[in-house]
């Protein structure tokens, strides 16, 4: 460990703002892109399922005789 205390680690020898800004924004960007891609995957599958359910409903409606 290069730093003696937690305070020193946070201070980064006076460059704390710049170091933590870089790592904060950088890792945040990675996290956001990962999470949004993951939620897109979930959303697409839900969309496929919804469409499937809709198709089945249409099929059923077609098979039932039309009421006068």
């Amino acid at each position, binding site marked *: *460990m*290069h*730093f003696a205390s937690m305070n020193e*680690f946070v201070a*980064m*020898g*006076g*460059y704390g703002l*710049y*170091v933590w*800004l*870089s*790592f904060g*924004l*950088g*890792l945040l*960007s*990675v996290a956001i*892109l*990962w999470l949004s*891609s*993951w939620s*897109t*995957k979930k959303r*697409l*599958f839900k*969309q*496929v*399922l919804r*469409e*499937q*359910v809709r198709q*089945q409903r249409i099929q059923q409606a077609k098979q039932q005789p039309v009421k006068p």
Partner: protein
Amino acid sequence: MWKWLHPYAKPERSYQLCQTLLPWFAVLGGLSLFVGTMWGLAFAPADYQQGDAFRIIYIHVPSAILSKSLYCTMAIAAFVGLVWQVKTAFMAMVAVAPVGAMVTFVSLITGAAWGKPMWGTWWEWDARMTSQLILLFLFVGVMSLYKSFEDAQQGGKAAGVMAMVGIINLPIIHYSVEWWNSLHQGATILKMGKPSMAPDMLWPLLLCIVSWVLVSSAIFLLRLQNEIVRREIKRPWVVELALQNSKQQAPNNMSTDRG
């Protein structure tokens, strides 16, 4: 070799390959990103000139290297798509673009935050920074050009041409620090002879670079899957896959479904 490789151009096989690779890249990438970043932030020695501000290197250099290699990947995918008319190639191209834009953005942000304490300015319109900003615009351009077409294959062709033309920017970025006077320093690792960096600082940097490659690949694989599903959304294999997924996730809920 072509006989062995060719089935992977089929979207369904590509999807399965992504599915197999994704957990490995995600887990190894996340793990190495954590270890590498902590190593660089807390355990590497401070620089004798820049003090602790030099630690920004552990996120700036990996993202900058990745931005160029991802552009290269995107251009190669575009080339394959344009020349051999492989549908999955354009999907790969579109899947890479946002990842590339993200790492380029990170390299610019971290560069600015490093420039302020060391050069006294957040931004300077010099060759390295301007060409890197153009790289970001190229990534965004490819994404939006693809989106602006109704037909995905058409959009892929247009965006592919743009991606290939834009590759001229890569040597400009690389040699910008040699061709023009720049605030930015020259190459440290990738130069002739030994890298001019102490091993204590170099090892965490190499680990960080590897981790960024793995994490970017993981996001790329995920996005490629999404793109494949989006393009093949009406195909029976996608429907089958969605049904299987919902069964795995909620085996109890299926009976109460309205379907």
